[in-house]
C-alpha cells in the first residue's frame, strides 16, 4: 500500500518515451516525425508535403507554430476536391 511500493508508476515508467528535438507532422495519416534543423524557421514534411512554421520553446525544443498558410491551404483545397469527387 501507498509509498511502500517504491516502484515506478505507469506514468513514471513512460517517461523515457518522451522525445526531444522532434515534432510530429500535423497530418494525422502522416504522423511523420520531423526534426527541424537547429534554429530553423520552417520545416517541410518529406512524406506528405505539408509545410509548417517552427517556433522554439527553448534551444533544442521546437514546436510547430502554424502552417505555412499558402502551401497548406492549397494542399487542403486539393484534398477536399479530390475527396468530394471520390464520394460521388
Amino acid at each position, binding site marked *: 500500500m501507498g509509498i511502500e511500493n517504491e516502484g515506478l508508476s*505507469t506514468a513514471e515508467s*513512460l*517517461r523515457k518515451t518522451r522525445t526531444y528535438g522532434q515534432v510530429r507532422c500535423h*497530418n494525422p495519416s502522416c504522423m511523420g516525425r520531423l526534426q527541424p534543423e537547429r534554429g530553423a524557421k520552417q520545416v517541410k514534411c518529406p512524406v506528405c508535403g505539408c509545410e509548417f512554421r517552427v517556433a522554439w520553446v527553448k534551444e533544442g525544443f521546437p514546436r510547430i507554430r502554424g502552417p505555412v498558410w499558402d502551401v497548406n491551404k492549397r494542399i487542403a483545397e486539393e484534398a477536399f476536391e479530390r475527396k468530394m469527387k471520390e464520394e460521388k
Partner: protein
Amino acid sequence: MALDRKIAYIDLSTGKIEIKPIPIDIRRKFLGGRGLDAYLLYNHTEKGIDPLGPKNTIMVSGGLLTATLASATARTHVMAKSPLGGMVGSCNMGGFFAPELAWAGFHHLVIKGKADKPVYLWIHNGKIEIRDAKNLWGKTVTDTQWAIREELGDDDIKSLVIGPAGENLVRFANVMTGIKNSGGRTGMGAVMGSKNLKAIAARGTMDIKIAYPREALEYNKRFIDQITSAKVNQTQGTLGTPFIWGATNSWGGIRCRNFQYNQQLYCDDIEPEAIDEACTETIGPYHMTGCFGCQVHCRAKYKIPTGPYAGVYDEGPEYTSQGAFCGEPDCRSLETLLVGNHLVNQFGMDNLETGSLIAWAMELYELGILTDKETDGLDLRFGNDEALLEMVKRICFRKGWLGDTLAEGGLIASERIGKNSFDYLIQVKGVSNLHSDERATPALALNIATASRGSDHLRSRPAIDLYHLPVEVMRKIYSSPVPYDGPLSSEHTEYIGKPWQVFWHENCYMAVDCLGICKYHTTFLGATLPNFEDWSKVIYLNTGLEFTPREIWDIAERCNMIERLFNLREGLKREDPYRGDLLNHRYFDEPTRRGAPDVVGRVIDREKFRKMVDEFYEYKGLDKEGIPKPETLKRLGLDKEPSHLL
C-alpha cells in the same frame, strides 16, 4: 488517522448556519471536491426546481488534497443545477481560494435559499458570518475583491465573487477569484446572483495536518519533477494554454465562423508566440504566473499594449479566449483578443459561451435570420472586431434585444429568435461547445456529446488521442487500474477503441476533480503525467487514508454515475437535441474544409457514432437509453439514492 474536515450548511433565507464534520465513510464513497458535491447536489435539490430560484442549492468545495503536498492542489469546485441547460451545473477554477477556505476551517459549503438583500459570506478560522454587500453590488470582479480586503482590513483574504454578469443573471455568468481564475461554463455565477450572494471571502490560519510530512515532501518533489519535465508542461509554462489552440488550429481542429470552417487562416497575430511577445514587451521576460503550489505556471500576465485600454493589466488570455475572440467570430487582432479577455474577466462571464453565442448570432445575421432590427443596428458580420466587443458588453448588461436574448443562453435564445436558428447552434445539453471542432476526431466528439455538464472538454476528453501514441503505450495507460484488452488505435480519425478511452478519461478527470488537483497534472495533455497509481501514494502520504488505484477508479465511476442520475432526473434523454448525448446535425452533415489533408472532408459517421455511444454506455453500465441498469446502481452502491447521509 482521522481527517478533521468540516462542511457548513448556510441558509441565506433564514441566516441559519450549521457546521458538521465530514464522516470518513462518505469520503470513502465520494472522496471530496466535485464527487462529494455531486452527492450533495443530488441530495439537496428537488426535481424540476428553477435553477435561478431559491430552491437551488449551491455547493462550494476544495478537494480531498486541497492545501496539501500534491503538486498543485489549488482547485475550487462549485456546483448547482445549471441555469444554462438545466442539467448538472459545475465549474472548477484554480487560484488560491480553496486552500484559504481549507485553512479557514472548511472543505465544503452548502448554500441554500436566497438573501433578501445583497450579502457576502465572511469565513474566518472556523466562523461564518453573513455580511451586507450593499457596497459591493455593481462592482467588477477585481474591484469586489479589493473592496472586501479593504472593508475587512486584511490583504490576504481570498474571495470567490461574481461580477456584473452574475448580478444580471446572465445564464453563463462565472464565479471568479483573483484576476482571472474563472469558474466557467453552466452559469454558477448566475446562481450566486439569484441568491443575492455577491461573494464568499475566506481567510484562515488553521493547520491542515499532513499524515507523513517528510515523506510527503520527498514524494512531492518526485511528483513535481514528473509533471514539470513533461514537454507539454514546459510548453505550457512558456506559452500558456494558447499553445494548445495554436497546435489545434494548425491541423484543423478549431471552429471558425461559428461552424463553417475548422481552421482560422492567416491568424499569425494571435498565435501563442505573438501573445508571448506582447507579454514580454509589457511585463518583462518573466511574465508567467501560477496557481497555488503549481510549478507549471501556465498563466501569462500582460498589459494591453494598444488602443483605448492601453496599459490595463490582466492575465491570460487562455486558449478559450482565443476561441471566443479570434477563431469563432474570425477576428484576428491581438488587441481584440486581449481586450475581450479583459472584459469577460471583469464582468465575470464565460468566455467560451460568450464567443460561441456571438459567433452563432453572426452566422444568423449573415444568413438574414437576424437583422438590423434585432441587433439594434449593430453590423454583426464575422470579422467585425468592434461589433464583437460591443456585443460582449450588451450581453453582460442585457442591453438591446439581442444582448438580453443571448444572455439567456442558446436554448432560450433560439426559441426567441425562432426560424431555424437552433440548427446553427453548436451546443450539447444547452451548453455551447468550446472553440474546438471535433468532426475529424470521433473520440473527442463522443466526449463532448456525453459530458455531464453539457458540451465540455474537461469531463472526458482523451486529448492524448491526438498524439499518435504507439498502441503499446496506449495499452499501458488504458489497461490500468482496470484491465482492458479491447482494440485501441493510434489514429485520432478512427472510431475503434475510443469509447473505452473516453470512459477511462471520464473517471480520471472525476478523480482529479475530487482530489482538487489541476488537470495539467494528470493524463490530460501529457501521456506521461500522473494518474490513479500515483494518487494512491499521494493521498496516503498526505491524509493517511489508504485507497488502492482501483478504489479511486470505483469512486470516480460512482461520482460520474450520480451526476448522470441527476441529469436523468432533470430530463436527460439519449437523442434529445436539447438535453441529450447528441451533437448538432452539422457534425454529421457538413464536411470539414480546412486543415491537414487527412482532416479535410471529414464528418462524423452517424452510425459509427451511435455505436460508440452504445459501447460507452455499456462500459458505464447503462442500457441503450442511457439509463443505469439496476445491477450497476447496486454495484456502485447508489441503489438507495438520495440517501441523505450528509
